[in-house]
């Protein structure tokens, strides 16, 4: 079963993952423009893009444990997943700045003044060097530093989850579930590293 899945995954070209991965962007935009996201499409679009970005970040973090614990090998798609996550965080940010806030001075004021936006922005800032160094040349050039640098994904994902929890009103279930999943995945890593060191 796992072997069959791995064989299938091997046959799937990476470009297909990129292609499928970017499709939700024009789809959501189309929905937003035609009433498919409800009567207030700006916040809805912002939310859909943000949620998708967070899901992709979490999926990216699942790839290593999936191989270790289930034997499922998706390593060849990890870069695509990471870059797609960055793409959606960036779109989320664009929609927020251009369609939602609209006022340039208020964008900056919000980043400095509103903790949930500061946290989200910090997460985005951390993803920039990761996106920039996602090419083969950088991997070779940076060597072991590359692995260390890319551990920032953990921090960025946690910040994304916290950003979501901080922006909702009251104690809502969905952001708590996201954070719980993130904590579970990260704790798997801690456990595994401890085992390796023992």
């Amino acid at each position, binding site marked *: 079963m796992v072997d069959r899945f791995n064989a299938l995954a091997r046959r799937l070209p990476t470009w297909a993952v990129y292609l499928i991965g970017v499709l939700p962007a024009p789809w959501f*935009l189309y929905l*937003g*423009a035609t009433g498919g996201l*409800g*009567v*207030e*499409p*700006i*916040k*809805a*679009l912002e939310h859909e893009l943000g949620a998708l970005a967070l899901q992709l970040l979490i999926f990216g973090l699942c790839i290593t444990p999936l191989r270790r614990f289930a034997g499922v090998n998706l390593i060849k798609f990890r870069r695509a997943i990471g870059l797609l996550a960055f793409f959606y965080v960036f779109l989320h940010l664009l929609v927020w700045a251009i*369609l939602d806030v*609209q*006022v340039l001075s*208020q964008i900056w*004021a*919000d980043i400095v003044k*509103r*903790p*949930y936006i500061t946290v989200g922005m910090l997460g985005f800032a951390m993803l920039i060097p990761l996106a920039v160094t996602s090419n083969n040349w950088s991997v070779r050039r940076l060597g072991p530093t590359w692995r260390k640098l890319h551990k920032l994904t953990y921090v960025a994902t946690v910040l994304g989850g916290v950003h979501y929890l*901080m*922006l*909702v*009103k*009251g*104690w*809502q*279930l*969905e952001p708590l579930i996201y954070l719980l999943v993130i904590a579970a995945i990260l704790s798997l890593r801690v456990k595994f590293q401890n085992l390796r060191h023992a």
Partner: protein
Amino acid sequence: AAIGLGGSVQAQEDLKPNSWEEITSYCNYYEFGTGKDDPSRNARALTTDPWTVKIDGMVDRPGDYALGDILAKMTIEERIYRFRCVEAWSMVVPWNGFELADLLNMAGVQTDAKYVAFETVYRPEEMPGTRYPVLDWPYVEGLRLDEAMHPLTLMATGLYGKPLPNQNGAPLRLVVPWKYGFKSIKSVVRITLTDTQPPTSWNKSNAREYGFYSNVNPTVDHPRWSQATERPIGGGLFASKKDTLMFNGYDEVASLYDGMDMAKNF
């Protein structure tokens, strides 16, 4: 004029109500879910007939009032009000309802009463959102007595001349147009006159962000977002924002707060 208030009649003439679809599909009613479209999907399960409102506390004629008996004594009129949510979006809503003052006078407010407390119906079996402790259920709200007796303060029973849809707070909800929307408590089952400031749900949940008064005020920001501007619902993907007005444009209530520091009493 039906309104009896020069200022609002003037203001009302420029107001173009949002569509039925907009008003009834984009709601905050956390008892039916936290998504904006959750209430319109889940609220039909709420039984609104029969409906009883308990009026108690410092009144001459406390009791359980059947909604039908209340309505028989009230004059229903249309009020087209601006509606400003604390989340910085806004609508214009053509309510049907009666003045809260008329209802309070029917029960006979005693002279020592200073505040009015309100409570929303709490039926977990009909309200799926209450299975989660998003807020401390049941939802409660409150007004100072002079705010409650103000002629702008409405108890709404309808929308566009039709009965109020469940997701909008059927069968009876408060509408206080110069305050953020969450003050306008929905599906009211209890009204209590007291001499102490009653607890209010969002204030209990987060006192730093939500005060008792919660008057619309562009100069006092919510800690997490600006209140200077608002997005009118209905403008689509490229909707522009507009400036938020002090007291949501209902300047006639300003005298209720003479001498009060509005930044402290937010």
